[in-house]
Structure formats: C-alpha cells, structure tokens
C-alpha cells in the first residue's frame, strides 16, 4: 500500500516532511526560470503541485477503492521532487515544530533578498502595496498558514507552496536566493506572479475553506479524510518531546494497570542452560539452527535470570514465546524489555500485535503510537499537539488517529525499495483490529513484498485471511510460514483453527498435537502433573474445542497441561 509522498529522506533522524518545508522556504521560481522560459514560470510552479500524473492518480483511486492492484510507484514524482531538492540549497530545516511558520527563516530570506538587485525590491514593494492583504505582523502568519493548509490535497506541499507565496508578500525581493542573486526576472512574469498572488491573498483573507483554484487539480478528495486532520496540527502550541513522552506514559500506564497478569515472567524451574554463561548466544544459535522454540526460550530465560537487565535477551524471549504460542509469557517478557529500554522498536511492535491478539485493543493502539513516535517522531508529535488526550473509551477514534499517523509514515516512502515493512505491518494490525480485512491484507502483502522470507508476515497474512472467512487461502499462507520455519508453533496453531472452521477436525487435532509436542524439550524431566511454568492455554483450549466438535467429550479430560501429544494420538487414530 504505497501512498504518495516521495523524496528520499526517510531516515528517522531527519524530518520526513522536510522536503515540504524546503519547498516553502525556498522560492524556486528562479531555478525554474533557469530551466524554462520565463513566461512559463508560474505554470512551472503550479506544475510542481501537479506532479501526480494521471496514471498515478488512477492507482491512488484504485487503492482507495480497495482494488487488489499491487503497489504503485511514485517514482516519477519522487524523481521530480529530488530534482527540486538538487536545485534548492538547504535552508534552515527547523521542522522540529512541524511546519510552523519560522520567523527566523523569514529573516534569512529577507536578508538574502536585500542583497539582490534593487530591481527586485522595487518590483516587490509594488506588489506588496497592491495586495489588499497586508499582514504587517508576524503573528498573523501562522493563521494564514493554517488557512492555507485547509487544502485537503497533498497538504504539506501545497501549504509549502502557499508559504512560498506568503513569503513573497512579506519579504520584498525574496525571490532571490544566494545562487541567483541579481538575476532579474522579466517584468512580464512578475506581473503574472503579482496577479496570481493578489487572487490568492484575496481568497485567503475571508474564508478558511477557500479552495485554492490555482493548484486545485491534484488528487481531488482522494486524501481528503486523511489529510483533513493534519491541517489542524500546524498549531502555535507545541509539546516538547519530553512532555509528549510523559503524556504517552500516563496513558500507557492506564492501560497497563488493567491487565495485571503480565506483570511477572514465570520461569521454568528446570533449565538446562541455567548456569551457562553463553546462554544468550546459545539461544540465538538455536533459533537459527531450527531448534524447537521452547528450547531457545529456555536459553533466553537462563540469560535473563543471570542478567535481568539484558534487554535483547528479554526481547528475544518475548519474540520466541509469542511464536511459540505462549502469548502471556511473551507479553511479560516484552513488557520487561520495554521497562529497560522504552524505545525498543521490535519489542513495541511485537507487543502491540500480542495485545491485539488478546483483545486489548486500546493498549495496542497506545503501543503502536509509541512505536511511531519513536521511529517517526515528527509525525507523532504533530498529531499529539492536535489531540492531547487519548480517549480511553473511544476505541474507534483512537484507532483512526493512530492509523493516520501510520499512513503519514507510509507516505514517506511510497516506492517499494524504501518501504518500511514495519509501518506496513503496524498499519495492517490497525486495520485488522477494526476488521477491515481487505486493507489488512494489502498491508501484510506489502510487508511480505519487502521481506518475502519472513514467516511471521506470512502467518499474519494467513490470520487475516482466516478471519475474513477464507480458510483455504489462510492455510496456504500458514503452510508457507511453516516452510520457512517448521518450528513456528503459532502458525501450526492457526492451521488447527482453520481446519476446525472447515470442519476437518482430524487434521486440526493433528496439527494442534504437533504444536503441543513442540513444547516438549529434551532434557526437561518428566514433571508430575505436567507442571510446566508457561502453558499454551490457547493450544489446549482449541484442542478441547476440536474434540467437542467431533463429539469426543470423553477425551476432553485428558487435555491438560503437560499432556503427552503422542500418547494422546492413540486415543483418536
């Protein structure tokens, strides 16, 4: 699911919306005029807005209509944008405050402009006096920005564009930049500028929702609902990163308290790796070599018991146990990992998914917000400014809000090469939790596109197929996951579930028993009553369900923690 965006600046360090702001701060009309005839200057500026070609527009619309077309490339647009970047020198990119109007930048632009030839200045003082919308104070600029941002389209870009225009009114001669200082633009084109600008100013002053006719032609409405929210975010107020962090913590705490169980991780009492100082490395090797997940889990348990602050060991333990279909244990471990290292991205994502599995949707959304705030801080910060409180009870509104953050992140890298599969995964999980399974599958497929050998992604695709009532296709996806990792107990559990849904109870039970047998580790002595610390209640309960469905209630009592899968088979087959 690629959405528009573009540019190659997707690194977490830089502001992902940087290119929008660049557009704003640098008036590129001169560069354009270098490349084009002066008369086309205005049209050139406009054409930057109209970069989405018809074919791309179609792709967009088809996505919005939930077509199954594959990811569509924004390469042409990305190319155009990078062209712009090459031509514009980097200005002060203070995006920390979002696209807030930066008075200092204006000073810079002003100064640069002053250095240009006097011809410029006179032209512009003329235009300034023409324009009815003299905004003498800088205080009004933000509001102008805000109204300009009501453009629902490629919000950032058009807003940037508008900023460029407003720059013109307040900074006489701002058209110049360092490289082109002194270049004189034909009077004719300037006149066009003035006219257009006057139109714009007139329109702006009265109504906030005035559609800006000049650039109106892009993606009309396609992103309306996504971007509408963004408009409000360019507010005067801002939260520092710390305040945001604190606010998030408070909300997360709220959700955390209500799920008491996941507090402490329950360790196995018998652990062959208990005294092994290389337990962590052994655990990693076990995972690579295709050993049982339960064995790897023991190794990681030993590692954290020896060193309770070992962040990666907790992370691996959490990942392994969730794949091992021991959700509660996995969640305990992941929460512990996050206590030690609150910005651990894989832990956050895995934990959010586990919350969704267990029905704690609000906690999942809070965790996903934490993820995106960590990896794409600017996006999350803006949205937080807009909406400081997570509405604890309004699950749907919360979901929508976080989804929009993820969509923004996805738009940063629309082409497959740069796509962030974790953003796609997060987006898929968000759609899954509100049962929009078609969109879910698009997202998971996109993630698979980037990581075709990731068994976890295949399993997720399968789960969404299963929950949208396509068990046969789900089984294919699970099988693929198991090909990639035969020890993936969760995928096997899911197979069992799908077979039950199709009424094929024998097959279901076979897979569930195999899954259970994968929890038995050589070296763990037989414990009376089968008291193993972490049980997969889901495997056991689902096995009972299958037995119920095939009318073998007599066997239900035999399903209990520590049961032996092999001897159980004898009762049935």
């Amino acid at each position: 699911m690629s959405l528009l965006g573009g540019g190659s600046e997707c690194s977490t360090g830089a502001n992902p919306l940087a290119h929008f702001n660049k557009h704003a701060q640098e008036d590129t009309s001169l560069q354009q005029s270098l490349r084009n005839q002066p008369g086309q200057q205005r049209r050139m500026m406009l054409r930057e807005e109209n970069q989405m070609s018809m074919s791309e527009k179609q792709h967009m619309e088809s996505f919005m209509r939930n077509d199954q077309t594959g990811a569509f490339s924004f390469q042409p647009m990305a190319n155009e944008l990078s062209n712009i970047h090459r031509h514009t020198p980097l200005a002060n990119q203070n995006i920390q405050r979002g696209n807030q109007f930066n008075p200092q930048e204006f000073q810079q632009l002003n100064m640069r402009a002053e250095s240009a030839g006097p011809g410029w200045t006179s032209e512009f003082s003329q235009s300034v006096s023409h324009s009815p919308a003299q905004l003498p104070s800088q205080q009004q600029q933000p509001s102008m920005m805000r109204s300009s941002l009501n453009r629902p389209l490629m919000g950032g870009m058009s807003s940037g564009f508008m900023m460029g225009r407003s720059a013109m009114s307040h900074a006489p001669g701002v058209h110049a930049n360092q490289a082109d200082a002194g270049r004189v633009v034909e009077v004719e084109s300037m006149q066009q500028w003035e006219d257009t600008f006057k139109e714009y100013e007139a329109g702006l002053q009265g109504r906030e929702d005035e559609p800006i006719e000049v650039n109106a032609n892009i993606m009309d409405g396609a992103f309306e609902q996504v971007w509408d929210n963004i408009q409000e975010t360019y507010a005067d107020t801002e939260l520092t990163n710390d305040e945001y962090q604190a606010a998030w913590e408070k909300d997360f705490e709220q959700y955390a308290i209500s799920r008491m169980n996941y507090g402490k991780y329950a360790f196995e009492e018998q652990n062959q790796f208990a005294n092994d100082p290389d337990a962590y490395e052994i655990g990693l090797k076990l995972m690579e070599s295709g050993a049982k997940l339960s064995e790897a889990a023991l190794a990681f348990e030993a590692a954290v018991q020896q060193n309770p602050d070992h962040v990666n060991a907790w992370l691996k333990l959490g990942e392994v146990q969730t794949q091992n279909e021991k959700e509660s244990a996995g969640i305990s471990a992941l929460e512990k990992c996050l206590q030690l290292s609150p910005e651990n991205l894989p832990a956050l994502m895995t934990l959010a998914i586990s919350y969704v599995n267990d029905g704690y949707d609000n906690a999942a959304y809070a965790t996903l917000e934490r993820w995106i705030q960590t990896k794409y801080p600017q996006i999350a910060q803006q949205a937080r400014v807009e909406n400081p409180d997570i509405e604890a009870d309004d699950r749907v509104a919360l979901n929508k809000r976080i989804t929009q953050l993820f969509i923004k992140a996805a738009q940063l890298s629309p082409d497959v090469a740069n796509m962030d599969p974790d953003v796609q995964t997060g987006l898929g999980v968000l759609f899954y939790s509100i049962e929009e399974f078609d969109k879910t599958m698009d997202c998971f497929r996109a993630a698979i596109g980037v990581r075709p050998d990731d068994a976890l992604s295949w399993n997720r695709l399968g789960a969404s197929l299963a929950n949208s009532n396509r068990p046969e296709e789900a089984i294919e996806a699970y099988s693929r996951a198991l090909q990639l990792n035969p020890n993936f107990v969760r995928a096997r559990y899911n197979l069992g579930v799908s077979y039950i849904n199709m009424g094929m109870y024998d097959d279901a039970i076979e897979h569930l028993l195999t899954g259970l047998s994968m929890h038995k580790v050589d070296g763990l002595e037989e414990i009376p009553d089968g008291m193993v610390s972490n049980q997969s209640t889901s495997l056991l309960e689902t096995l009972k369900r299958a037995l119920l469905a095939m009318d073998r209630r007599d066997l239900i009592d035999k399903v209990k923690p520590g049961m032996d899968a092999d001897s159980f088979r004898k009762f049935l087959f």
Partner: protein
Amino acid sequence: MAPTVLTASTYGKDNVKFLKVKKDPSNPQKQEVMEATVKILLTGDFDISYTKADNSPIVPTDTVKNTILVEAKTFDIWPIERFAAHLAEHFIKKYSHVSGIDVTIHQHRWSRITKEDGTPYDHSFLKDGEELRVASLNYKRNGDFVLTSGLKDLTVLKSTGSMFYGFHDCDYTTLIPVTDRILSTDVDAAWEWDSKKLGSIKAIYGLAESGAIDAAFKHARQVTLDLFAIENSPSVQATMYNMASKILSLVPQVRTVSYSLPNKHYFLIDYKWKGLKNDNEVFYPSPHPNGLIKCTVARDIKAKL
C-alpha cells in the same frame, strides 16, 4: 449404624448487612453510601466438628461476622469485588486450616437524588429498584481463584418489539405464534473474569484501581438495556446471546458471560364476550408460571497474528 463418611462440608455466615458511609475529605458533607449483604463460606479441616463433635477447629460464624464488619470499616470496599478479594485473602492468611473460601457480596441500590436540573445532592439517596450488583469470589489456598461479577433483579419490560414464532410443533403444543408481544424479565447477568489473564488474586486490586471492574459493570448493564430496547427480539434466546457477545467484545479480561432470564408472561385479556377486539392493548400480568432461559457464552477460537 452403618459406617458413614463426611464427603463435603462448608460453613460460614450469611446475610451480614451493613451500610458504609464514605465522606469526601475536602467536604465531609459530601458522602457516598454502600449498603451490602455479605455471605462467607469456609472450607478446610473442619471434619472433626461434624464427625467427632470436636469444635476446636471451628472459627465461629460470629467471628466471621465480626471480621466482615471490622474489615468493612478499615478497608476501602468500593467496588465490592475489591472487598471480596480482601476478605478472601484475609481468611486464608489468618487461619491455616482454611483451604478455601467463597465470598458473595450483594450491593443494594442507592442512587443519589438530583435536582430537577440534574445537580446531585450531597448525601441523599433514592432506592430506585430492587436491582442488586453482585460479586462472588472463590479462592483456594493454592492460589486458584474465580471471580464473577454480575447484576440481578433488573426488571424490564417492553410493550412491543418482541416476537416468537417458528418454534417446534407437536401434539402437546398449543402456543400461538406471534410477531408482536410483550417481553418482560428480571435480568440476571454474570460475567466471569479470566483467571489466567488476571494471574493472581492480587490482580483484582489493580483491576479495581484502574476502574476496569466498574467499567465492565457499566458496559454490561448498558449493553443489556440497549439491546433489550433496540432489538426486535425473535426470542429471549437470540437476544441474550447478542447481549453476551457484545459484552465479551467490550471487556477483554472477561472469559464468559452468562444470562438467566425468566420470561414473565403478559397475556392478552379476552374481550370477545363484549364484542371488543384487543389490539395488544390490555394485558394480564401473569405471576406464574414463567419461562426460564439460561445461557453461557465464551469467545470463539481465533487465528493469532
């Protein structure tokens, strides 16, 4: 006499009633009340009191009553689930020969009186119905526990929007199918918390603190009333299933939801003798017999992401 053996026993105190007042520390005139009825039953090594008339292990039921009253004073008893957990832990901790305890608390309805514009009075309440809020907790020394919250005797009636037809027919059946009837019941709903998800009995305090227990009660009550009112009910069975499913979707920590609904019949009065047609206008409220329908609903197995 033939030899006999005691196979099961339990004892304790029932109908311990009290009303607790909670004063707002910033304004002591602003008060909250809880009127509750508590029942506690103990199990453990008490056999010899039955078989050998040896009273030494018996913790007197009077002591049980004293305990309830003392703990009610010294402990924060809102919500009643929290109080139940506290009592359970107390008995298990204090008496080593007690191996299990059953605590049941019924909270009676006292709703704050409000002015016409809705502003509440500080310390005046109205008993708006015989509805009870219920908590029952079974706790064993080995840590196993089952907490169930619920409500009962919530009496509701709808004058239309209820049907019953398409039922099984046989030579004993005289009931006439209808598409428009009165539906009235005393709702008895209960939701069992998922002990595995909660982990230990101590989790109940966290659940109470975070407001999850009260929220679950609010959801359950509102869902019941909403679906009762909204659905054009094809049967009591169908409507209660929908209610239970909705509650499960709203509270992830709950494992199952159960309903027990009497169908309190209202029969059309016959005016044929006067030549009048009764167009679902005047009914006879029949006190007995009543239909009784029960069900328990749990979550279905689901694929895991």
